[in-house]
């Protein structure tokens, strides 16, 4: 296997539990990630799957160091980045990019698409040849050049998500975290965005963390899958092995719960008692 881009050992993340916050004083911490070990090989697409509360988004945010681990380590290219300060992280930000679930709220409504894609380029010292770089970014995601002068409200959901991808990839990052990027989209648009990401990941040799609640979109795109539940890894394996021969009951339940677009009269029957 290729050398890992990320190497994660014993990762724990604790966040303030606002539901238990006293009127005065700090909220007590709740452990969201309870000790995770895994590697992300360079140039691979890894699916991170789980239901709500599984900790998949927290894991994603820890990987790109929007959150600091409370225990364990995250190594990026062999360097421990678990406790780097904001200043020490700054040169790494360019390499760790995110694509968000809801492009409507992650794109500034008052900025043109050009300035949305150009802003991170400027911040990361790529302010020369801006027009050229933005044009290239738009072309990469299949958007016409005249979109540069438009605003987010003039775009459809799929086009907005293309802008999100263009912005993240314009910096030629080493790692891209895609957090539920197709869950708000119609199926026809969803298929377009997934095939686009599949193509770009292969062309650019990207390492991608693809967070999703939906196992059915994972198989085409990902080489390996991490299934999470309640802050722990339930099962992690190569994609085909996971789908063809899931080892854990929970993974099997998740697969069985997906309604395939096929007639199956037994699907809704209550489970026979074991």
């Amino acid at each position: 296997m290729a050398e890992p881009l990320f190497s994660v050992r014993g990762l724990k993340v604790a966040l303030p539990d606002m539901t238990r916050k006293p009127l005065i004083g700090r909220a007590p911490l709740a452990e969201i990630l309870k000790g995770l070990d895994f590697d992300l090989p360079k140039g691979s697409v890894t699916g991170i799957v789980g239901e709500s509360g599984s900790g998949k988004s927290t894991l994603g945010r820890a990987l790109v160091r929007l959150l600091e681990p409370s225990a364990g380590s995250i190594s990026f290219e062999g360097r421990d980045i678990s406790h780097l300060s904001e200043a020490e992280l700054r040169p790494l930000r360019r390499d760790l990019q995110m694509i968000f679930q809801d492009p409507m709220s992650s794109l500034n409504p008052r900025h043109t698409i050009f300035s949305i894609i150009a802003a991170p380029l400027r911040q990361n010292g790529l302010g020369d040849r801006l027009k050229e770089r933005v044009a290239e970014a738009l072309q990469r995601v299949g958007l016409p050049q005249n979109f540069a002068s438009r605003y987010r409200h003039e775009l459809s959901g799929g086009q907005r998500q293309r802008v999100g991808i263009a912005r993240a990839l314009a910096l030629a990052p080493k790692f891209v975290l895609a957090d539920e990027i197709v869950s708000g989209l119609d199926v026809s648009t969803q298929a377009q965005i997934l095939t686009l990401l599949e193509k770009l990941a292969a062309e650019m040799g990207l390492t991608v963390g693809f967070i999703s609640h939906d196992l059915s979109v994972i198989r085409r795109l990902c080489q390996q899958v991490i299934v999470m539940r309640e802050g722990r890894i339930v099962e992690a394996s190569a994609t085909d092995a996971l789908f063809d021969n899931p080892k854990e009951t929970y993974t099997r339940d998740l697969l069985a719960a997906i309604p395939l677009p096929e007639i199956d009269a037994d699907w809704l029957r209550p489970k026979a008692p074991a």
Partner: protein
Amino acid sequence: MSVCLDIRGLSAELPNGQRVLRSVSLSVQPGEVRALVGESGAGKTMIGKAVLGVLPKSVRIVEGDMLIEGEDLGRLDAKARRTLIGARTALIPQDPLTALNPSRRIGPQMTDRLVRILGWRGERADTRIRQLLDEVQIRDPERVLKSYPHELSGGMRQRVLIAAAFAAEPRLIVADEPTTALDVTVQKQILRLIAQLQRDHGTAILFVTHDLGVVAKISQKVSVLYAGKVVEEAETAQLFAAPQHPYTRALIAATPRYTDPYASLKPVDESVLAGLTAEIAAADKDWRPGHG
């Protein structure tokens, strides 16, 4: 028995004359589940709202008829129409959290409709609600009835709303994306419950969804919508065995199937969309805004 819901040539438009429903015809037989499937903007939720008489003020019905068990809603005055809709229909909404009042306990919210709209005595309503909570497999009804909505999980809240919808024995339920906000394992439990109660009570359901997987599992009949127009109508088994319209075929091919990853997730072809645009233009050729 008469047709439970019969929609004939229903057209609706916005104040600017833009047509949002295009001569929609569909029927739901007693005890049958009909799915309305389409992507955003297809008009599927709007049809559900039209049936329940809760269209936004900006949407005007300009043509067509809606009949509930043979009674033509258009011939009734506003009060009689509300009474009829209140007595014979119910809604299972998409988001149970926004459908429930956050500042009131579950119990009174559930009995309210029975007492206020149907004029039941409090005791009868209470017994009925407990019976339904049992049917939706809520094992600790006391706790649930005393809870506020935020104290329950998403799946629990949806169970409560399913129980409330079936409580008054409506003839027709409009289920508007009732599982879209739920985790996939919870979705399966909720779909099972809806199917179970629907069979036991013989209720007809108009099931609005964007998910062809859900369509395949829950419905017997299906109408595929695009831009407010029914582009295909079929028995569900028939639709999946031999889809007729290019758009239906494209939608099925775009829907992910983990069992067959390379035959699914196919982007919709430009020619299909061009065909749809031409079809909509043809449907609107002789349309005069506001002539209804």
